């Protein structure tokens, strides 16, 4: 017996199988692609709306608005000053419009990830069975090379903003789900018991005790989700998402070193802004934990 070569399926069988699956999926796409596209259309509307808002408004207003938002989150003048300087430089080097597109994209993706992620995380925290089913799916979403799930997304939606958003959300939603789950499960048992003893319903326990105590952890998840959607911007540009990713892609293809570095740095800059302001917000949520007594 031959123990060196693995006893694999014959080439022909393998090809037939691939063709069968691909054909089935293509048929599915033809049959339902339009329906799916119309379901996801609101995402496009929202994204275009935010993009237009950021691009068409006078830059000074947008700058002030973003600085105000950063202040509201972090309450730190240092972060606000860093934000203003970074955005001024970005504008000066001609990357304003692309940056605004990327910010709009990340904002929409994060919003969708939160809307999906928090309820799923709650579900996992409440049911060990759901936890058992969803955890491996999340593992798969996080380790599967992102290019692989770009394929079906593109087959269904073609190139454009919506498939970009879907691809980014698939990539970026796991941390918020995981950390919502973790945050709720970490609520001390004795505190939950106290809530129980006072006659809280399940919903009251969730609203009054579990979610507030999990919130700092959930915010850490939101932070990671934002970082991951920014990282995905370059990949998403391959399927037609406009923004800072496109010039980077162009720079790779044509070996434009400076163009690549400038846009790369712009991505880094907004990543730092997002990161610092959401982290500062998370810290503020934990004020009550600043221990003065053991």
């Amino acid at each position, binding site marked *: 017996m031959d123990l060196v070569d693995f006893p694999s399926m014959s080439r022909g069988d393998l090809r037939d199988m691939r063709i069968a699956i691909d054909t089935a999926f293509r048929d599915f796409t033809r049959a339902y692609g339009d329906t799916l596209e119309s379901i996801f259309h609101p995402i496009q509307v929202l994204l275009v709306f935010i993009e237009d808002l950021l691009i068409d408004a006078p830059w000074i207003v947008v700058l002030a608005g973003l600085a105000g938002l950063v202040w509201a989150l972090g309450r730190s003048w240092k972060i606000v000053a860093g934000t203003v300087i970074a955005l001024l430089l970005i504008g000066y080097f001609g990357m304003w419009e692309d940056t605004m597109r990327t910010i709009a994209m990340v904002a929409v993706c994060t919003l969708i990830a939160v809307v999906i992620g928090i309820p799923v995380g709650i579900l996992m925290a409440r049911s060990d069975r759901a936890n058992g089913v969803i955890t491996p799916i999340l593992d798969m979403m996080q380790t599967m090379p992102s290019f692989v799930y770009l394929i079906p997304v593109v087959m269904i939606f073609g190139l454009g903003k919506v498939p970009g958003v879907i691809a980014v959300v698939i990539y970026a939603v796991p941390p918020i789900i995981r950390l919502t789950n973790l945050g709720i499960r970490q609520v001390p048992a004795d505190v939950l018991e*106290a809530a129980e003893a*006072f006659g809280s*319903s399940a919903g009251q326990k969730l609203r009054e005790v579990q979610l507030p105590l999990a919130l700092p952890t959930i915010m850490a998840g939101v932070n990671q989700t934002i970082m991951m959607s920014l990282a995905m911007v370059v990949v998403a540009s391959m399927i037609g998402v406009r923004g800072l990713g496109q010039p980077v892609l162009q720079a790779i293809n044509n070996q434009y070193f400076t163009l690549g570095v400038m846009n790369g740095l712009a991505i880094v800059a907004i990543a730092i802004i997002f990161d610092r302001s959401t982290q500062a917000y998370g810290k503020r949520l934990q004020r009550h*934990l600043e221990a003065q007594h053991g």
Partner: protein
Amino acid sequence: MAEATHDIEIRDLYKIFGPNGAAHVADVKAGMSKEDLKARHDHVLGLDDINLTIPAGRIQVVMGLSGSGKSTLIRHINRLIEPTAGKVIFEGRDIVQMGPAELRDFRREKTAMVFQKFALFPHRTVLENTTYGLNIRGIPDGEAEERARRWIARVGLEGFEGSYPNQLSGGMQQRVGLARALTNDAGILLMDEAFSALDPLIRTDMQSVLLDLQQELQKTIVFITHDLDEALRLGDRIAILRDGRIIQEGTGEQIVLRPADDYISSFVRDVKRGHVITARTVMRRVEPVETPVTLPATALLEEAARAMTDADASRANIAAQDGAHLGVVTLSKCVAEMIAPDDGDEADAKAQVA
């Protein structure tokens, strides 16, 4: 609503911790000990054949060494722990059989609990912790706050309403737990070592708060403590647990005068008898005598002795609440009872030194 009119009746209650507790009830009923159950089946015997009637409007103290099942027992009254077998009857209903909604209403309206480890909500301020029970019952914020502030002041935490629990010392946190339970104004108050983290001064103070409260409101209070003096001061009745069984139940006086076994004797040996035994138990039923001192039937030996010494009298009349004469005590008898516990020399010596 606040005043309790129904006893809590605990009947044939068993709790066996472990994945398959119910399977071992029969063994335990047949007399298997806590050690054997642990060694042979790896289950922990929490409660063993508990029968206890907790009288309405009274303070029932539960005592026992660490691990004897006190917290387990008190948690069965609001069913934070499901029993393995048995009943807990209140107002004609078995708490063990209640459905989820019924149990929730029972907990909201009839009970409040103070926890051994405080179990405060870390994300809520002192005031918000205290209003929790009222909030979830949908009582308007204004009213809830007003009631909460009253109790916060009563436990001596005025000025800390806006603090978070971990900005407070252990004793202060325990008082927040107390205020949180009292604000709920429920008929049943479950207190699991509610005063254990307090310094002696505040502890005495909180005992007084509880006794005052009890005089006003007559709640049914289950109070767990390790401290015999506290048990005797607060408890209308005292139950003593050992390895999940009740080994003696009665008034403080009964337990001090007639400890059921050596375990309990060792508990009560150091007690200040003058603070526990009433003059009435040592009086003689004779006609009234000529003396300036007349004592109520509830007077303790120490109070009686002090009253007689102050008045320079050697005898006192004892009268019932309505003024009817009951009997006579002598100063020497009072003092003799205070310093002479049942078990001889050692304690005698102690009393003399003190």
